[in-house]
């Protein structure tokens, strides 16, 4: 990740520099698109949301401040919010809750497609190392919160656990992941 350069590009976008926007899109769209596809599980819909998100980047670039974090962080915030808004707008998140309820008794870490698994493990040692840092319960809670946009209460009800337990799992998992995440590149090879 090259934060200063991304920030420079974003500042140029704020000055309505179309070439800078195109460059920033080339740099960030791939990981952002992967996130949106993971949230919505629909490639076609994810492309719509990707377009909406980057349009907002163009329109609101002047609101970006370095203090808010990296441009990647800022764009992810925008894209994830749009994806989750869409997921919740037609109550599709309820299906995610039902799926999570099905996990209550699931002890097998290889279980269900896409819900509790944060990433396919074929992506490389960096991601495998990140995931190895946290246990299955922490992975599930983080994935349900981050990728499925569920609230602490919804996760707690779905997994039949106290809200405090869910919050603690998320907090603990994030703390363990933090140093590994900081070393991850935006786009893994392959």
């Amino acid at each position, binding site marked *: 990740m090259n934060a200063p350069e991304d920030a420079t590009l974003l500042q140029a976008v704020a000055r309505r520099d*179309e070439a800078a926007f195109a460059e920033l899109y080339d740099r960030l769209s791939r*990981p952002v698109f992967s*996130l949106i596809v993971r949230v919505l599980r629909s490639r076609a819909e*994810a492309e719509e949301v990707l377009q909406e998100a980057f349009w907002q980047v163009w329109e609101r670039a002047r609101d970006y401040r370095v203090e808010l974090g990296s441009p990647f962080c800022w764009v992810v915030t925008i894209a994830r*919010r749009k994806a989750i808004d869409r997921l919740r707008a037609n109550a599709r998140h309820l299906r995610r809750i039902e799926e999570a309820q099905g996990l209550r008794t699931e002890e097998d870490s290889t279980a269900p497609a896409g819900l509790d698994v944060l*990433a396919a493990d074929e992506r490389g040692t960096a991601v495998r190392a990140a995931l190895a840092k946290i246990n299955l319960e922490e992975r599930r809670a983080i994935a349900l919160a*981050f990728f499925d946009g569920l609230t602490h209460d919804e*996760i707690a009800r779905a997994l039949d656990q106290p809200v405090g337990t869910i919050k603690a799992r998320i907090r603990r998992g994030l703390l363990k992941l933090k140093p590994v995440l900081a070393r*991850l590149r935006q*786009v893994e090879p392959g």
Partner: protein
Amino acid sequence: MSVKKTPRIRRATSPSCAFGDPLDESTARLALLAPVAPAPSPAVKEALLARIRASQGGAGSPSRPGIERSSHSGRLGEPAPPWAAWRFGSLAGNEGWVRLPFPGVRMREISVDAARDTALVYIEMEPGAIFPDHDHSSAERGIVLTGDFEMGGRLLRAGEFYEAAAGTRHERIASPAGCTGLLWVGAAAWGGWRKAMAAAAAQR
């Protein structure tokens, strides 16, 4: 506009979502753990760049009237891409909304093709709003995008559509929960109706 603006839908993800906005740096980087998806279609980027050019060449930039290519160095002189003449619009703002003589209903003309005698119109009804009896000189097709409305003795919900033949009379249309929808009507019929509505609204 005499019709009250429909309140914006409350943001569903905040503040109750487990991760609020804005995300902190390490939380945002969880995105990197998503399974890598194949690259998005190049059409997404093309559409964005076309939209940017259209917006820069639009009303906000009087020195470049109409839709033009960006003035970025290295691009001038190239043949105009197919999307250079596309038209982009938004439901935001007050332009294009039709004044209606009855409350709680807003209609916005999206496109009119006189040559093919078609018009695409967006309609928005507040909960409980009523669209009075009216005649159709052209055929009308409609689809409910959100909410519901009563028509032809049934309650149509989001995703449901209808087709009404030309020359038929429509009884009053009510929307118990409020709705948004798209209507395809004849361009000439729409133009006449629109003028009549504006005149009736002006008299009120």
